């Protein structure tokens, strides 16, 4: 993450919003001054040490700080953790995601973790225990014990334990370790030193040694990185919950059984929210939305299942070049993860009708060869640029399907690998009505697929898309090239911004320039089919919005302006940076507007904060006052949801 002035200001505002002014001021001081000890802070902030300590403690509790203590040194160096500060915005979204995916109790636990920062498991258990006891007392006190409805989501410490286990297995929660508060640079330095001392005492010489050094480094960094996941590994050694559920005969949930099966967690261990994995899950959701937008709901549901399987073991959206470039390789190519059709089929809800959302056509109109073409290697990034081009030559990896003729039948009797449990006897009845008799005589009949084939059709639609949603990487094996699909999604988001800012004509010009590269103004009217005057106006408008740029190329050494070429071009990276900056500032403005509103309604708000008014605002406040309070709450909600929506865009452009 690039820490620009805007980002720094935004983060300070967020921290101010969440944790008050003191931590926020210390945070922005750390950003302006860089690494500082408490002495430096004392001096630059002109505050007492105890106050600064207090602020630092808050920041550390919420993981907004890195610190580093050299052996033997008296004072630690503190550094701001900008990523985590920004992620605070995403808390609401993460909670929503956890609730839909793992249920309300998980959300409750997650919310408490977000609210209290890193927590010892024992403390969490104690806190819950208190609430449960209180609830039990209320239940006993209530007149009708049977009808008493508890508003507690987590009803026993056993359930709490199992919820935490689930979240740990999903990597959404990880452990706080000794290295958690070391900044990435410090960790790298430490590991470098370690590797040097251990293996390359005499220094690194020669190409071979250099490669070896890099590999050792990557290996060690991976170890450090996976340390917080030790709890997950321990749980997996016991057999993951999914496996156990299967052994128990496939019962969906049976709270009691699960509670007893999960090992009790060490109460001394400290846990925290793992934003990296949360981002992966959020990315899945966004991708599903993207697919739904392009191909409809059923197809996107299939896509969601595919992504869920595929990202189970993906811990982060963007790979670290230093760590992930080396290792986990087979013959020089990184090992590829994929999902099979059968796996997806097994996880689809039986109530889903897969025939919905698929166009119907006849056998004659389909080219099986083109549809089921297998691409074992990801296509080059280049193809994305050519996407908009119509006449682009077939790239080399597409050549092999040149001989495709139309008489390839779409054979309905494609035999999926034997599926366990599902449709055990599907080869013998049902489907055959189509397969056996109809196939030979009429190609003009509409194809009727059985369920596995319907699923395949949805996957093939995704694989055929220009947006690289899915790659058919082997027979019945599917994978996703996240880099490619995210690139296309990023472009589509930027296009949205361009279209909304400068209209459809602006979008047309931007896309032309992107597809054709740099163009002289004279060449544009014909391609864009626009009038010259309108075109010039639009280009200028877009230039000031930062979506297109102009380059002056002198025709002669004297660089006469009249004789120079003016080439227009559109640079995606520049546009992206610009849009990002606008987004940060928009979020900042939202917070500032909220602050202004608070100031305006401060009298109402101060009244509502009183303990006797709190919770009973409607009865306690005068009508007029209450209306104002309601309106303020509504505005607050709108502003916060707006921030979240802008963050959606930021996430796509920057994090996913």
């Amino acid at each position: 993450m690039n820490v620009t002035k805007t980002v720094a200001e935004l983060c300070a505002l967020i921290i101010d919003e969440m944790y008050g002014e003191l931590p926020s001021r210390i945070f922005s001081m750390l950003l302006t001054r860089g690494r500082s000890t408490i002495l430096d802070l004392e001096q630059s902030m002109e505050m007492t040490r105890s106050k600064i300590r207090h602020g630092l403690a808050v920041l550390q509790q919420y993981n907004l700080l890195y610190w580093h203590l050299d052996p033997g040194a008296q004072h630690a160096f503190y550094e701001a953790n900008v990523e985590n500060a920004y992620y605070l915005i995403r808390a609401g979204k993460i909670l929503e995601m956890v609730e839909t995916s793992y249920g309300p109790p998980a959300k409750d636990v997650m919310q408490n973790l977000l609210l209290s920062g890193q927590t010892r498991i024992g403390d969490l258990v104690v806190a819950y225990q208190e609430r449960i006891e209180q609830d039990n007392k209320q239940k006993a006190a209530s007149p009708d014990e049977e009808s008493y409805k508890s508003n507690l989501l987590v009803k026993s410490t056993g359930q709490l334990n199992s919820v935490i286990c689930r979240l740990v297995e999903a990597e959404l929660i990880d452990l706080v370790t000794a290295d958690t508060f070391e900044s990435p640079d410090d960790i790298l330095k430490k590991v470098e030193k370690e590797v040097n001392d251990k293996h390359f005492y005499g220094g690194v010489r020669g190409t071979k040694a250099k490669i070896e050094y890099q590999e050792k480094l990557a290996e060690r960094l991976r170890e450090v990185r996976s340390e917080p996941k030790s709890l997950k590994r321990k749980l997996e050694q016991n057999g993951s919950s999914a496996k156990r559920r299967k052994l128990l005969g496939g019962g969906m949930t049976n709270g009691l059984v699960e509670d007893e099966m999960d090992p009790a967690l060490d109460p001394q261990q400290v846990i925290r929210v793992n934003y990296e994995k949360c981002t992966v899950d959020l990315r899945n959701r966004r991708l599903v939305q993207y697919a739904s937008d392009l191909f409809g709901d059923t197809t996107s549901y299939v896509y969601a299942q595919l992504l869920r399987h595929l990202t189970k073991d993906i811990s982060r959206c963007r790979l670290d070049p230093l760590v992930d470039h080396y290792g986990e390789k087979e013959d020089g190519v990184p090992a590829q993860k994929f999902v099979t059709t059968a796996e997806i089929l097994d996880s689809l809800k039986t109530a889903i009708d897969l025939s919905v959302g698929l166009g119907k056509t006849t056998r004659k109109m389909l080219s099986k060869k083109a549809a089921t073409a297998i691409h074992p290697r990801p296509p080059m990034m280049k193809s994305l640029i050519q996407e908009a081009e119509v006449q682009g030559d077939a790239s080399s990896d597409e050549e092999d399907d040149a001989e495709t003729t139309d008489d390839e039948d779409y054979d309905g009797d494609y035999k999926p690998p034997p599926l366990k449990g599902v449709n055990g006897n599907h080869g013998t009845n049902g489907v055959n009505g189509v397969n056996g008799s109809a196939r030979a005589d009429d190609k003009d009949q509409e194809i009727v697929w059985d369920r596995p084939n319907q699923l395949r059709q949805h996957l093939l639609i995704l694989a055929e898309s220009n947006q690289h949603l899915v790659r058919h990487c082997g027979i019945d094996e599917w994978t996703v090239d996240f880099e490619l699909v995210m690139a296309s999604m990023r472009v589509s988001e930027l296009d949205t911004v361009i279209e909304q800012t400068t209209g459809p004509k602006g979008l047309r010009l931007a896309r032309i320039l992107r597809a054709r590269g740099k163009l002289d103004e004279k060449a544009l009217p014909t391609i864009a089919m626009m009038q010259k005057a309108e075109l010039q106006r639009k280009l200028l408008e877009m230039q000031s919005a930062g979506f297109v740029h102009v380059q002056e190329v002198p025709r002669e050494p004297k660089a006469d302006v009249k004789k120079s070429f003016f080439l227009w071009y559109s640079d995606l990276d520049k546009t992206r940076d610009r849009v990002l900056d606008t987004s940060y500032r928009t979020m900042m403005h939202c917070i500032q507007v909220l602050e202004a509103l608070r100031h305006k309604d401060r009298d109402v708000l101060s009244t509502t904060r009183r303990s006797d008014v709190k919770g009973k605002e409607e009865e306690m406040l005068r009508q007029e006052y209450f209306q104002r309070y309601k309106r303020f709450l509504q505005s607050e909600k709108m502003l916060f949801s707006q921030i979240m929506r802008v963050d959606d865009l930021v996430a796509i452009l920057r994090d996913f």
Partner: protein
Amino acid sequence: MEEGEAAKVDILKNTLYDTVIQHGSNTRLFTQSDLLDLDIIPHRNLQLLLQVIQALTNDKLLVGVTGGQGGLAWKYRSREDAKKYTSLPDETTMLVYQAIDEAGNDGIWKRTIENRVNISDAVMKVCIKILEQRGYIASMRSVEQPNRKMYIRADLRPSHRATGGPWFTDGQLDGSFIETLEGVVFEFIKGRGAYHQAPGAGSGGATRIPKRGVVTAAPTVTAGTKRSAKEITSDDVTPAATPGRPVAVASPASAAAAKSARKPEMFLPMPAGYKGYPTIHDITEFIHQLGITSNTTLGENDIRQLVEVLIFDGLIEPIKVGKRRGFRALRPTKQSTIPYNIRAKEMQNGIGLHLPHTGVLPPTNGLTEAPCGRCPVFDLCEEGGTVSPSTCVYFMEWLGLEEKKKEGDGVAEVKVEAGSDGKGSAPP
């Protein structure tokens, strides 16, 4: 001797000219050996050939040009054209006419003629006047350089390059024509490249065929108890059992809605490998048969230009199936199923004017919906500046607090009163 020689040249001249006409069009170049090979000049006498050619050139029947291989070559000119030349009063006018003649149907700029013939503006004017009077030339305008005064031979029509091709009417880009055609082409691609699901097709039986070219909907097979993904997601899901279910489709109302109308009328994506996506050729043919472009014929290249614009607009995408390069509409499930002509009528009657002419409403995102995304003074806006977020009128409007701001004074008064009152009445 002299006279005999002249008569001989005269005869040879006519014979040579008549033979040359037989050997090709007036753009063909004849080299010296070509002319000798015609076997008209006795003994391949070069001297004689020279005289004959000179005579023909004087009559403007032959034009000397630089040949393909760098040598001298000639092409002929028809007798009528030559007559135009010879009827002109002087050499200068002739040169001017020649320049215009050579430019063909592209036309030539007045300034270019002046430079080439090397004459002054006044002389030029006289020449032009003579030529225009005789009806040999006409002035024209080119879309490439609309401010330049250009001339063309009166009997020629300006080329596509000068008129801008079929998209221009009277030198102006014909926006409404293009827009209409874009709509028609888009509609065609949409209909051909997606499956049109007729409403309520679940029970089987005859289905409405929307329009020609669309793959027809036949009885759907599975009408049983299965439900669509949309309905499912609104079900109560057991925690931890189905992580990662789609959010985009979750809506509590959809279950009830979907029960009453099982299959809404909509477009669906075609299965992969579909060979029916329309190609440029198909589209051209369709436009041709439709006959909406009565006075201009659109070639495949014109249509390609149009289709590319649709791609750049983000309405359609190219899709390659095998060797076939077809096109389909983006976001088929979001497309309106109302045919284009009905849509156009509705628009005329003022219905649905907020909807785009073609395709779906452009997508929006968080940034473009916030006031800041569309703010004209965004770059100036800063806390403490002349324009600042805390005083932003756009935000107040967006939050629906606009009226409140206007009566700010009134509110302030109430505040004082209510503040004391609130305290007094607060204890229960």
